[in-house]
């Protein structure tokens, strides 16, 4: 399973640079659904560091970081219950 996790993470990071923003978003959800994935949080931070203008739109809120943290932790009970 580790290689799936790595592939999804790599796709997410490449998507953050080269493709549309929803590819990293999907990768974050996929990683968080199946794995206790710290790289999903890093991917969210990476998106915000790469694209967010400090103090810009959305009041400068790091939406991807917030999204990644929420998704990773909201799926924690689900992962523990069904996938551990």
């Amino acid at each position, binding site marked *: 399973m580790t290689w799936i996790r790595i592939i999804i993470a790599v796709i997410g990071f*490449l*998507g*953050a*640079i*080269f*493709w*549309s*923003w929803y590819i990293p*978003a999907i990768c974050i959800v996929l990683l968080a659904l199946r794995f*206790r994935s*710290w790289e999903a*949080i*890093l991917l*969210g*931070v*990476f*998106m*915000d*560091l*790469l*694209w*967010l*203008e*400090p103090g*810009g*739109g*959305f009041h*400068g809120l*790091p*939406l*991807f*970081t917030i999204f*990644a*943290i929420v998704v*990773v*932790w909201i799926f*924690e*009970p*689900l992962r*523990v*219950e069904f996938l*551990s």
Partner: protein
Amino acid sequence: MGNGFRPGPAPTRKGRRQLFLVTLLAIFVVLLNMALGGKVSAMVRDVVAPVSDFGGKIGTAISQSGYFSSRRALEAQVSALQDEVQQDQLQAAAFAAVEQQNASLSSLEHLAQTSPGIAAPVTSSIVSSPYGTFTIGAGNADGISSGALVLSSGGFVIGKVAQTQAHQSLVDELFAPGAQTDVSIDGAAVVASGQGGQAMAQVPHGITVTQGDPANAPDLGDRPIGVVQHVDSNPANAEQAVYIALPVSLSSLQFVYVTP
């Protein structure tokens, strides 16, 4: 019955602790970036820029090699047809905008010729950013400062420079989601709200707005920011919704012109 919050076995607790530490680290990095005015993100962009550039070259090489020729041919055909439709609809609009711009600027032609500016390559994907930003390959070492206007080759204002580094700058699109710009459409002063790729403005019913009318931004040197693409004049609403778009596709831009 299972409970997600029960104490799990040791590896579970360890993994959860690890995740918690990464979460704290992420929050710390984001807060640090905010406190330093975006210096961390500037460093990340400096690291990513060569990767992005290298990836772009690989993409171009693969595309030109003909490996995906059938797919490429179809994409080219679809793109050509879409461009044709778009050109038919917006060519007249673009001409009107240019005509109006020419009329208003003809007396200032000598100033326009002397206004400083620099052509800069677009160095990132336009569609990757969820915040309506992209990077250009020129920075404060090239005389670019925050707030400089970024123009398309047709003279339309695409955005403003938001953050500069030595040889790279982050541009905030005018049509980024949530961005607001004061514009003038057919003499009506309204606020255009960015929706990502286009903007929407509420114009009173008394003012006649037609497709193709230019939208100028008085705060940006009265330059055009787009043309009216669609007018939703439902009489049930107090105001008519006017949708503004650029007559060119942002994704097709390779170079932009940056002027203070």
